[in-house]
């Protein structure tokens, strides 16, 4: 297997995640798109680890997984709070800080 096929797959997933973050109108879906990007990064880490024939890639992927879990927990709490205050989960409605 070529290393590049994994890297190109991850580039595609990362691009899809960027598209989702820009176009989605529901905050939970924006978080899901961020998860897509993190999965893409994980594929890169593990592919490089397999190329180097050691477990370091997996260790880094585990760290990314942990951060992703923490991010989803805090992110959904924030989404819930915004929904409770604004009655809307659209990130465009959370514009109190806008000048």
């Amino acid at each position, binding site marked *: *297997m*070529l290393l*590049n096929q994994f*890297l190109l*797959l991850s580039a*595609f997933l990362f*691009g899809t995640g960027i598209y989702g973050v820009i176009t989605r109108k529901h905050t939970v*879906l924006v978080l899901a798109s961020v998860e897509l990007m993190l999965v893409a990064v994980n594929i890169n880490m593990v592919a490089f680890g397999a190329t180097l024939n050691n477990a370091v890639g997996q260790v880094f992927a585990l760290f990314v997984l942990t951060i992703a879990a923490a*991010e989803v927990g805090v992110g*959904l709490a924030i989404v819930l709070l915004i929904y409770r205050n604004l009655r809307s989960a659209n990130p465009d409605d959370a514009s109190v800080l806008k000048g």
Partner: protein
Amino acid sequence: MVAQNVAFWIFAAFMAAGAIRVVTTDNIVHAALWLVLVLAGGAAQFILLGQEFVAWVQVIVYIGAVIVLFLFGIMLTRAPMEAEEKLNNNLRWPGLAAALLFAGTLAWAFLDQWGSDKIKLTKPVRTKEIGDLVFRGYLVPFEVVGVLLLAALIGAVVMARKD
């Protein structure tokens, strides 16, 4: 090697289709379920690379916990369960341009740097090696991540409770 390549492209096709549906479907619950397909495909790729520990962690943490959290978030924000309104704003073309630009740059850099590097799999990486690494070389980052998880847990509870 041929069988592995065929398996890779099958999984990659499923992952690409799932990822596109995650960002385009108008049904919120379906988007979460398509995300399951992408994550399962990722776990399959990890097993294909002989890195099975992280594959099963991905299944347990992502598919088992994160997706359930997403579904809870969808229910608690009373999202429309049926496809009654569009879930994408009118930034389709700028979004597509940004995504293509970024993915294109990445792909160009990858092809330029690792044009024909091959992955030579000798044996699967055993969990013992990961344990050795985490508790020797990466002990401090491991502890820091533990503290970060605790902080995220407390922060989420404090933010989400009603008072």
